[in-house]
């Protein structure tokens, strides 16, 4: 058997952590090879080594049978290796075409031949079924489209080996479906794909072979068709994982959060939330599901104070909080796991320990007479890191920016759950997390519920909504079109309601 890429006994150290420990990975040509592992297992590091972003401390790499030294991404490119990064590397105010040809521009004399460039981009996008508008600006197109631009960048450079680093973490279910089709098409056109993910479903759907890493070590390589999801999950986490959330029936109490006739504008100035009313009671999880962009973001921002509604009221325990500041709302008992963790969840250039006390840095025990108590901050951080298994190179002193995305998310979840707010607004809590972490976070959310807190769970993952929620509200075009009992609905019914195609005759009937 000949392999197109072989990474043999790769080792890589970072300050305080061995990210890759004697890892061997062999990739067959024209296959989709999945790389599975928890957050921080070392998947991105391994792929960054293959792409020339990092140099390994030990081990060798062979491409098409020849030993190579990939000293920078240019070498990788010339070997036909391309990478779509977890965080896109696109220039926001350039056009699609400009981003694709950057660094390899077709010329007419001294001038960039932009017509020719657009033509080439269109040709490639037709060949692989990647429809994009070559003249659109990056900042004006959706995340899914931006990802296509990243793929086109590789194809324009004639990449044969395509690395995708958690490509589905930022996509909607529809976009994920399209991406899977694109990947299959790429393989039929002769490409080889390396897919990093922790979504077992996706591996089952497209991958041929799966290599599992755990805490920097190689656990094994298995053929996907002969391995069950449960087995792969176990290899990844190192113990058995339950995919179903254990919970007793909810015992809802008084209404803690009440939203009345709320109207909220989007950033673009049109109404994103229209005349929306909703109640969340103590001791229940209300799941809010809908297709991305139907007003979820605006609703969450209005409740947490990140944006001001046009009209309507938000009541917390019958107290009108519509015009309170963010801090006043936090103090009043609202907790928030934000959708955009890097923008609203963390100060990336602060340490983990500092991020943990971002709400109450000014009060004892963290501060006294205006002076921070480093020791208490450190202790607090160590406790949360232990409890929530947040992995990082230097513990409380790690800069938030240097942590892997999943561990950043865990840090936010740890901070917010630890505050145990009365009303908990949870947006995309497990986006980008591995099954082990998902299981843990779901358990903690249910624990909060059982303590009598009111939880509003906003998620694009239908599985998560159905597993965790007690009641499910479906949002479409800025309004709640139906509220159903989680036990008495299924994916199909929700899907229809989310697309606006179907409204139950009496949405209220399911409420009690």
């Amino acid at each position, binding site marked *: 058997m000949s392999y197109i890429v072989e990474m043999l006994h790769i080792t890589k150290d970072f300050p305080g952590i061995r990210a890759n420990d004697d890892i061997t990975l062999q990739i067959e040509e024209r296959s989709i090879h999945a790389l599975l592992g928890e957050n921080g297992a070392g998947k991105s590091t391994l792929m960054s080594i293959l792409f020339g972003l990092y140099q390994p401390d030990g081990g060798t790499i062979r491409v098409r049978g020849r030993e190579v030294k990939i000293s920078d991404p240019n070498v990788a490119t010339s070997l036909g290796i391309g990478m779509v990064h*977890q965080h896109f*590397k696109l*220039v*926001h105010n*350039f056009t699609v075409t400009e981003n694709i040809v*950057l*660094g390899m*521009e077709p010329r007419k004399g001294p001038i960039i031949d932009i017509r020719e460039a657009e033509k080439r981009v269109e040709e490639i996008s037709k060949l692989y079924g990647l429809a994009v508008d070559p003249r659109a600006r990056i900042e004006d197109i959706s995340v899914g489209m931006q990802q296509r631009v990243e793929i086109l960048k590789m194809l324009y450079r004639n990449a044969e080996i395509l690395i995708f680093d958690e490509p589905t973490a930022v996509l909607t279910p529809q976009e994920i479906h399209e991406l899977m089709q694109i990947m299959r098409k790429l393989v039929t056109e002769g490409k080889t794909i390396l897919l990093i993910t922790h979504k077992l479903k996706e591996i089952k759907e497209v991958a041929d072979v799966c290599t599992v890493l755990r805490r920097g070590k190689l656990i094994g390589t298995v053929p996907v068709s002969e391995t069950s999801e449960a087995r792969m999950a176990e290899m990844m986490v190192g113990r058995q994982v339950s995919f179903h959330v254990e919970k007793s029936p909810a015992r809802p109490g008084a209404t803690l959060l009440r939203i009345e006739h709320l109207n909220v504008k989007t950033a673009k100035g049109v109404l994103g939330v229209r005349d929306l009313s909703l109640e969340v009671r103590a001791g229940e999880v209300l799941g809010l599901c809908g297709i991305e962009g139907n007003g979820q973001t605006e609703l969450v921002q209005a409740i947490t104070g990140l944006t001001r509604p046009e009209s309507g009221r938000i009541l917390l325990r019958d107290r009108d909080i519509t015009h309170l500041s963010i801090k006043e709302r936090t103090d009043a008992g609202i907790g928030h796991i934000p959708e955009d963790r890097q923008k609203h969840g963390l100060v990336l250039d602060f340490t983990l320990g500092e991020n943990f006390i971002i709400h109450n840095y000014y009060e004892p025990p963290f501060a006294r007479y205006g002076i921070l108590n480093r020791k208490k901050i450190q202790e607090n951080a160590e406790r949360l890191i232990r409890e929530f298994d947040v992995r990082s190179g230097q513990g409380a002193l790690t800069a938030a920016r*240097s942590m892997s995305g999943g561990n950043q998310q865990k840090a936010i979840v740890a901070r917010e759950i630890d505050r145990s707010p009365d009303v908990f607004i949870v947006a995309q809590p497990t986006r980008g997390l591995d099954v082990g972490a998902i299981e843990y976070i779901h358990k903690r959310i249910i624990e909060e519920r059982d303590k009598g807190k009111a939880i509003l769970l906003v998620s694009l993952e239908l599985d998560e909504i159905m597993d965790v929620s007690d009641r499910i509200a479906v949002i479409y075009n800025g309004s709640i079109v139906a509220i159903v009992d989680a036990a008495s609905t299924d994916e199909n019914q929700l899907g229809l309601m989310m697309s606006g195609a179907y409204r139950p005759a009496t949405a209220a009937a399911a409420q009690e």
Partner: protein
Amino acid sequence: MTFEMLLQMFPIALMFAAPIILTALGGLFSERSGIVNIALEGIMMVGAFTGATVTVLLEESTPAAAWYGLLAGLAAGLVFSILHAVASINLKADQVISGTALNILAGGLTVYLCQIIFHQQRTRAFSNGIQKMTVPLLSRIPVLGRMLFIENYPTIYIAVAAVLLTWFVVYKTPLGLRMRACGEHPQAAASMGINVYRMRYFGVLVSGALGGLGGAVMVLTADIQYTLVSIHGTGFISLASLVFGKWNPFGVLGAGLFFGFSTALSFYAKDIPLLASLPGEFFYILPYLLTIVALVAFAGKSVGPKAAGEIYDSGKR
């Protein structure tokens, strides 16, 4: 204010506009590549000093001395800006601090060199700077000819040519595309095989050359010698023009002309009935006042290159 007076203002306004435009274009190259360059003031001083000195020293031997002065100013600005490039690109210093240091250094350095060369704190006065000229044919165009082509300093033509050339390089060539990418998202540029360090060196050195040229132009048209106050904040006005002009060469041209006219106004204010009653000093502060007003009015609205001022870290996620 009569139309005649407006026509008279043109040569003076254009004389002041030329160095502002040239220097602001320099700033454009630097910031588009991702390096904030507030050293433009100091670079202009170095260019002005060198331009004046070369002109004085060559005056005896060649009638084109002032033109050599311009070239020398350009070269000196380029060399001086290497300091900013090394500090902010290689040594990853804070760009504002490095720029401030250069501004302070420029004052001391030029006066020190004046002492050595001329034994006084300023250069000797040159007898002829750049000469005004009248463009044949074009000067016969009614009104427009009078405004732009009769008895004007040719430096404004150099400035306009530089605007066109800058636009071409920045928006039409691969070099410009790559340079802009480095100013917006250097990690993206690097992942496409572009050498961010090299592009930023290019941006800073071009800004040094244009700033040095701007300084030399200023002293050789609006002054008779270089002194510590020859530039008096024009480098900062150029930076304001860059913001005001939205980091676009034609915007810079418009902003430079605006500041040129606001400076020229101080010479004519006493002849304008409405303005004559104001104290003369008011008009000296006018360009600076307008700089502040323009910056406040445009604050938030005009956005520059996203990564300008940020230290480049290739490993940043």
